[in-house]
């Protein structure tokens, strides 16, 4: 199979779509079922091979980098579009990853540019007959409900986890990585980009309301820049000043894995997700999770997390307090989380992805 991928987001993006794209490419490159992988950059037209290698590691010879020209696209069996962009001219068949439809379900959480780009690219994918690949059953249900798509026309394959997110780490290296960032144990971790959908306002309300209940715990917030969060950013700065919060910007996956492993709890009370990758990452690192009981998060966490109403500050605070105060509950959720996270690693998902490719290429 000669497979084309829009790899641009792996280079230029941050957040879930970029992580999805990177792990997709790594998994495909490692699979013997693909003869040739051609990386395109739909954002910029073309990027150098060494730029991709800088982000993805050394690439084998079956991986080529090509400019966005008709002759390259027409020679493919299949084109996978994981970054909300379709190629301008035709590959014979397309697979389009639908990460979420929150631009329709939660428009107030997005900028106009986001909404236009997402909806226009979803429309284009459907017009060109692309196979729609949802990242969760919840996203599939949303697509069926909001776009009136036939139920059997949407495939589901979750994002693949980077194997670096594992429970066994180098204790000393983890401690060094955390210390470099000014993080000291014990702490509760939150990972999300700074955008309204991630519900940082209520999380900070909940944390403030806990007061002495959290003991010596700090709240460590790993948050890449998003949009429309000036008030939250200022509040985080104030709370950083009084020592109750540590705010960290974008960090590499290996450092993030170290922070997950050293955290006593992970909290992710998002208002809506297509999947909720940080929940799976935390579980894979053996960190007990508090997350939302709506959208895709119950599907990702199953019974391996405490599920809360993300609009109820008291419920978020109570779940954090319960987890911090109950060691046996933490141990139970850790064990269940490790088991649940196994289904999101490439060895479990690559066969499902190839089945989608096979059906799409027919």
């Amino acid at each position: 199979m000669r497979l084309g991928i829009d790899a641009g987001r792996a280079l230029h993006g941050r957040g879930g779509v970029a992580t999805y794209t990177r792990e997709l490419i790594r998994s495909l490159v490692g699979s013997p079922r693909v003869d040739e992988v051609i990386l395109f950059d739909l954002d910029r037209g073309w990027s150098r091979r060494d730029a991709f290698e800088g982000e993805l590691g050394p690439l084998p010879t079956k991986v080529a980098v090509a400019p966005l020209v008709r002759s390259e696209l027409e020679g493919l069996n299949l084109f996978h579009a994981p970054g909300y962009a379709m190629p301008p001219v035709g590959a014979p068949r397309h697979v389009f990853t639908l990460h979420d439809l929150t631009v329709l379900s939660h428009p107030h959480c997005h900028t106009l540019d986001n909404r236009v780009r997402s909806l226009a690219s979803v429309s284009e994918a459907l017009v060109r007959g692309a196979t729609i690949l949802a990242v969760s059953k919840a996203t599939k249900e949303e697509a069926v409900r909001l776009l009136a798509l036939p139920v059997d026309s949407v495939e589901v394959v979750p994002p693949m986890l980077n194997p670096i997110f594992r429970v066994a780490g180098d204790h000393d290296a983890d401690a060094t990585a955390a210390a470099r960032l000014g993080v000291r144990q014990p702490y509760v971790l939150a990972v999300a980009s700074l955008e309204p959908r991630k519900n940082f306002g209520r999380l900070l309300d909940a944390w403030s309301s806990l007061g002495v209940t959290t003991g010596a715990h700090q709240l460590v917030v790993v948050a890449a820049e998003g949009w429309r969060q000036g008030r939250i950013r200022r509040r985080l700065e104030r709370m950083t000043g009084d020592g109750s919060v540590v705010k960290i910007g974008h960090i590499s996956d290996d450092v993030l894995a170290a922070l997950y492993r050293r955290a006593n709890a992970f909290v992710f009370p998002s208002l809506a997700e297509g999947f909720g990758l940080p929940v799976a990452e935390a579980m894979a690192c053996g960190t007990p999770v508090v997350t939302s009981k709506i959208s895709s998060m119950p599907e990702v966490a199953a019974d391996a997390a405490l599920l809360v109403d993300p609009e109820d500050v008291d419920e978020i605070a109570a779940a954090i307090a319960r987890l911090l105060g109950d060691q046996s509950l933490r141990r139970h959720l850790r064990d269940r989380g490790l088991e649940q996270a196994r289904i999101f690693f490439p060895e479990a998902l690559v066969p499902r992805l190839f089945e989608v490719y096979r059906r799409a290429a027919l």
Partner: protein
Amino acid sequence: MRAELVVAMVLVAMVVGALVLRWFVRRFRRLRRLERATVGVSRAMDDGRLTAATGEALLQHLDGLRRACSRGREG
């Protein structure tokens, strides 16, 4: 003093002008992209590539977004 005031006013006018121009360009690009998507969906409905239900749903979302873009209002 008066010359400095004129220069300052010209600079402020240039900055404001650039911001307004940027706002119009972005609005124009969004509307053009939505217009193209709308045409594509309508054609796909006509020639049967899209079902009527999906086509109608997309057109409704595209129209709502076009109105939001015309107002230039976020959220």
